[in-house]
């Protein structure tokens, strides 16, 4: 086994729980094409030793990724990437970005400053997310 393909980091100030940060970093690496099918994720022991975090946090993150069908655990060997996120969503990025740029321009014309835009986006994002759950 060689060097791990990716290395995790934790942002204590982000307000995002550590396990979710790990999940997001794997998804992000998949989207950017840093992780490919067949790649091995760092072992639980490696992550724990590197970040000084609870092993259960790593296990929970890997279980979540497994549940999403992105990775599979091979008992006694490790956790391996089984899917990719690049193909499906990458194509949609361009048009979405364009729409977002138009919306941002509109918000500025309406007199919103950066902070108001961010606040509006985050509250809408959260309420929509909550409605989706409910």
């Amino acid at each position, binding site marked *: 086994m060689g060097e791990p393909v990716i290395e995790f980091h934790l942002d204590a100030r982000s307000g995002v729980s550590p396990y979710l940060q790990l999940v997001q970093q794997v998804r992000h690496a998949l989207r950017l094409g840093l992780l490919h099918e067949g790649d091995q994720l760092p072992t639980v022991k490696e992550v724990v*030793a590197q970040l000084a975090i609870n092993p259960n946090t790593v296990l929970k993150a890997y279980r979540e990724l497994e549940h999403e069908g992105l990775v599979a655990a091979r008992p006694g060997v490790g956790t391996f990437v089984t899917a990719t996120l690049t193909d499906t969503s990458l194509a949609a990025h361009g048009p979405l970005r364009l729409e977002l740029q138009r919306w941002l321009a509109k918000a500025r014309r309406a007199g919103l400053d950066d902070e108001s835009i961010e606040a509006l986006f985050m509250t809408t994002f959260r309420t929509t997310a909550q409605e989706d759950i409910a």
Partner: protein
Amino acid sequence: MTAVLQAQGLGKRYGKRWALRECTIDIPAGHVVGLVGHNGAGKTTLLKLASGQLEPTAGDITVLGGRPGDRPAQLARVGFVAQDTPAYAGLTVAEHLRLGARLNPRWDAAMARERIARLGLDPTQRAGKLSGGQRAQLALTLGLAKRPELLILDEPVASLDPLARREFLQGLMEATAEHEFSVVLSSHLVSDLERICDYLIVLSDSRVQVAGNVDRLLATHHRLTGPRRDPDRLPAGQHVVSGRHTDRQSTYVVRTDAPIHDPAWTVTRLSLEDLVLAYMDKPTAADRRALLEVQR
């Protein structure tokens, strides 16, 4: 699974002062438990009761299903790393390991040697000449090589610099990933606990204020901000942990199992640190009485 630590009405009194009182907890095995509170809140007392170094004044405590410090077999199952990670200044690192081997029936000599080598500690060095971080690592090595089912650590990283603190916690977490054992450690540095603990106990005013699974605690506590409102006008299921008010605005930290739908509130998640502070900040029964007396 056997509970790692169970206490029922546990209390310890020194003269007239209760260092710990009415402590009732039930901690399942397999967790890294953080014990947090002010200095003098009762953390060390609880840890010493759990390791059998103190006898309770009131109530009962069982650790891994047995009485703390009862028999040699029980002592072998529980490791204890005391505050400021003491070592025998006149003994060398190697002599500490030999002492560990003599005193502990389940001593893992290979693990101890391997850890010392990996840390780059010189076995012939006297402990008195080690840096704070190295001495802490030596104490941790002794605690781990004992191969306990429960390792108790009292403020192990309080006096260490940030790098040594991180290295100590890396070593501890790596060991829990490799050998399954439970950990109870006290600290007043919530930022460290946030990374490594999955179970939390907040002690304040000699009492347990809250205890539980970290995920569960974070999911059931919320900060509510909105127009001023008295606590008795909150729904019955919302237990107020702390409340602050201005003329117009109220800010509450509440614990509730139900979702909060009241549109008057802006609801935000709490970080573990906010949650701990809310409980440590909670007015004690004595404060409340004093307040009432002033108001009268």
